[in-house]
């Protein structure tokens, strides 16, 4: 797809602004802090593994015990309240909200939802 020079430059300028926006920088820092903490990484990994294992057993027709469900819920609560994971998820929500507000500006001018007209990556 051939784009005009003006559209190309404006799109690149917008991308640079987004990349430097405080909400996006905060998200990047939160991801880095999480990735640098082996305990947080292991905790989240444990949750994913537990979820996959329980789901597979459930889909195979096995009934899960109350104790297993309680243990899973406890693990999930532990993950959700871990400071670094909490920080990352909060930063993610704020980053997405910021991106949505910027996309709204494009949509407002176009009178159609810009994001809906971009093919899924």
């Amino acid at each position, binding site marked *: *797809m051939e*784009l*005009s020079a*003006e*559209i*190309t430059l*404006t*799109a*690149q*300028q*917008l*991308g*640079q*602004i*987004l*990349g*430097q*926006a405080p909400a*996006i920088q905060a*998200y*990047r820092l939160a*991801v880095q802090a999480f990735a640098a903490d082996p305990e947080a990484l292991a905790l989240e990994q444990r949750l994913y593994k537990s979820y996959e294992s329980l789901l597979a057993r459930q889909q195979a027709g096995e009934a899960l015990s109350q104790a297993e469900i309680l243990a899973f819920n406890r693990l999930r609560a532990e993950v959700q309240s871990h400071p670094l994971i909490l920080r990352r998820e909060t930063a*993610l929500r704020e*980053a*997405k909200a910021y*991106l*949505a*507000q*910027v*996309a709204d*500006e*494009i*949509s*407002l*001018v*176009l*009178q*159609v939802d*810009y*994001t*809906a*007209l*971009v*093919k*899924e*990556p």
Partner: protein
Amino acid sequence: METRSDPVTEPVVTGADGRAVARTLGRLLRQTSEYEAFWQALQAANQDPVLQRLGEQIRAQQAARLWGDEGEHEAALARLEQEVEMLSVVRDYHQAESRVNALFSAVDALISQAAGLDFAANARRSGCSCGG
């Protein structure tokens, strides 16, 4: 949301208002032949009396499906949807939509490359972009 490892950092834009630049981009996109064709096709579809009538019939069948014979209404719905897809106004719309999809996706790729993250996928308000 996964951030990309290769954000474009040159030339650095400082102090610019993202929303103002987004509006400028919106205006530039609105002036393209792809968008103009899409907008006209959308208006034509919205104002087409046959499409409106078929739309009403589809909605009636969908409502009736909840209360009546599901199989019977499914068949009627499939017939109506086929009729819709055969309308020239709908075919024109799909063609124009496809072109505008290509344009916006190319633009979004530039924004995303410069930002270091997928812009539209993370900006979607509805549905699940699942951190893409």
